[in-house]
């Protein structure tokens, strides 16, 4: 029972994990990205379509990354080069993603592919309780573990990561050090968006190997809230995403057990829980534990005086 629930938790949490990691990369560079929901859909559709045409899952993941990278570049162009309002641009990206995927996904509705299969890791998958849930999964989930570590390593153990964090905190100081602020920001937005796209692809290539219009169903927004819960740290994002995976898994479990509570009420739980978590994390932030990048949401113009 616990093993099944834990397994469902990891599988439900993984798309949110990828999306949260992508959003963290954006926000570390000082850019709010509210386009996460749209990027997930773009990733889900292009991943599914590429796999459907080529029969190759890896190609699907690559296509999801590339398409979301390209869509994220629009947000980057507007926010970085054109110094536009990041909130409006992000909302535009979400609308664009919802609309475009509905339009181009028409021919993919009802098609099926062979999704990612489980590959047990020897020894580790024999561990009691957690073995099955964490080490008898598909390659994308193993990749997400790696990505959590890679992003932590990038931000805290490499020069580029330090420079990117500097840009998020104080772009003028970074500029004075000779760091190309706009280039870094552009790349951070585009690459972060690409990882969000992989999160979307997890939905259409692993969770339910098919394309359904609007299949992200608000997970992108949950990811945006999780960034604050995670305190902009990739390791805490892992816990946050699995927390939500757990809620979703329990909700599905309740429904499967045939409870008398309406399915509509149960489906509200993840959203209500997200709001509660957001409030608690915001309160904690205000008590001085803030990891929020100092310049979040502000466009950088060298000629502005602060």
């Amino acid at each position: 029972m616990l093993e099944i629930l834990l397994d469902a938790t990891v599988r439900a949490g993984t798309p949110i994990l990828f999306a949260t990691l992508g959003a963290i990369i954006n926000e570390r560079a000082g850019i709010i990205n509210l386009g996460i929901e749209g990027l997930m859909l773009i990733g889900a559709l292009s991943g599914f379509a590429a796999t459907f045409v080529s029969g190759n899952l890896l190609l699907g993941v690559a296509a999801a990354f590339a398409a979301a990278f390209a869509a994220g570049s629009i947000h980057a162009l507007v926010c970085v080069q054109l110094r536009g309002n990041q909130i409006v641009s992000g909302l535009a990206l979400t609308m664009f993603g919802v609309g475009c995927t509905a339009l181009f996904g028409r021919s993919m509705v009802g098609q099926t592919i062979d999704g990612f299969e489980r590959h047990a890791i020897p020894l580790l998958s024999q561990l009691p309780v957690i073995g099955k849930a964490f080490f008898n999964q598909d390659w994308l989930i193993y990749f997400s573990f790696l990505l959590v570590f890679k992003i932590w390593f990038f931000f805290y153990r490499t020069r580029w990561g330090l420079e990117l964090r500097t840009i998020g905190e104080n772009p003028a100081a970074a500029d004075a050090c000779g760091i190309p602020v706009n280039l870094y920001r552009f790349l951070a937005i585009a690459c972060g968006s690409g990882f969000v796209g992989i999160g979307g692809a997890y939905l259409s290539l692993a969770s339910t190997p098919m394309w359904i219009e609007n299949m992200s169903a608000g997970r992108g927004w949950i990811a945006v809230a999780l960034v604050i819960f995670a305190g902009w740290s990739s390791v805490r994002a892992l816990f946050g995403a699995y927390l939500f995976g757990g809620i979703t898994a329990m909700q599905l479990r309740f429904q499967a057990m045939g409870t008398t509570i309406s399915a509509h009420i149960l489906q509200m739980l993840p959203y209500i829980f997200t709001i509660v978590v957001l409030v608690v994390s915001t309160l904690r932030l205000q008590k001085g534990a803030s990891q929020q990048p100092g310049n979040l949401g502000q466009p950088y113009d060298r000629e502005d005086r602060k």
Partner: protein
Amino acid sequence: MSLQFRVEKREQGSALFRALATTASVFTALFVAGFLLLAAGVDPAAAYLEILREALGSSYGLSETLVKATPLIITGLAVSIAFRMQIWNIGAEGQIYMGACGATWVALFSGLDTPLMLPAMFGAAFIAGGLWASVAALLRARWQVNEVIVTLLMNYIAILLTDYLVYGPWKNPDGFNFPLTAQFADAARFSEYFNTRLHSGFFLALFCALALYLLMERTIWGYQIKAIGSNPGAARYAGMRTGLAIFLVLTLSGAIAGIAGFSEVAGLQHRLQHGISPGYGYTAIIIAWLARRSALGVVIVSLLMGVLLVGGDSLQLSWQLPVAFAYAFQGLILFFLLASDFFINFRLRRLKETADA
């Protein structure tokens, strides 16, 4: 590179230049959307002609455009009043649903009759929308919780709550199990005009626009809202209670969006059902941004968006385009609008020329 440009700040261009830039960005968005249509196997020229013909080519089309514009005007106003204060109400969609639920509750279960019924429904929708938004408002005003995320997540909850009601306790017992409530009695319906679906909600929307214009431009509250929006620090220093103002304005914004839900069920649907709003609350964000926060602008832009929605509905029938396609349009319009802001606020100056330029 044969040309080099320098980006320079400039004074905002004239009102005419800004209007031109806004118009140009809408047309550019339509042009780019044409390529999307082309890629989806639809002839864009034919599609655009059809939009114009359907929405403006007949008196029925015109009336449908006004019908679509009705909820857009009301929600556009709701979002723009919060915008004035730099508060983002992305939750108008959910507030429409809650307003519709409030109005439906009165219509089905209050037993009121003609002179009282519609005002009571109005009041219930106003309160329901306001209460829904007040959650985000309280969190934002008291603890600075991000209102964008809260209002947005509340949309999903509101839609699920409406689904719960129409699939469950409020389902019409004689409705063959469809997710619908019973039809409203005549006392709970708006009058309709000219043998079309045009209903009193449209005039209610215009009244809201006038009321909000007067509130923003002619009262001390409107002045405070604008002052807090442009410089919260200075407003607080001047003795304005910014927290309270944020709470009241976001709650009012939700209450107004709730009226749109009332207008939809009383004027158009005459019952509550699944999916009563196909995303008016999201379109409202674009309307508020396009209208540059003016009440009159909201009315004009809503009418234009009404054209797009009526035309879009017909494209959906004749070309089997998905409803959500309208979002792609709207997203593009927003992107180009942001780009046009750049050209309003900055100028590109050519630095040096080489011989081949």
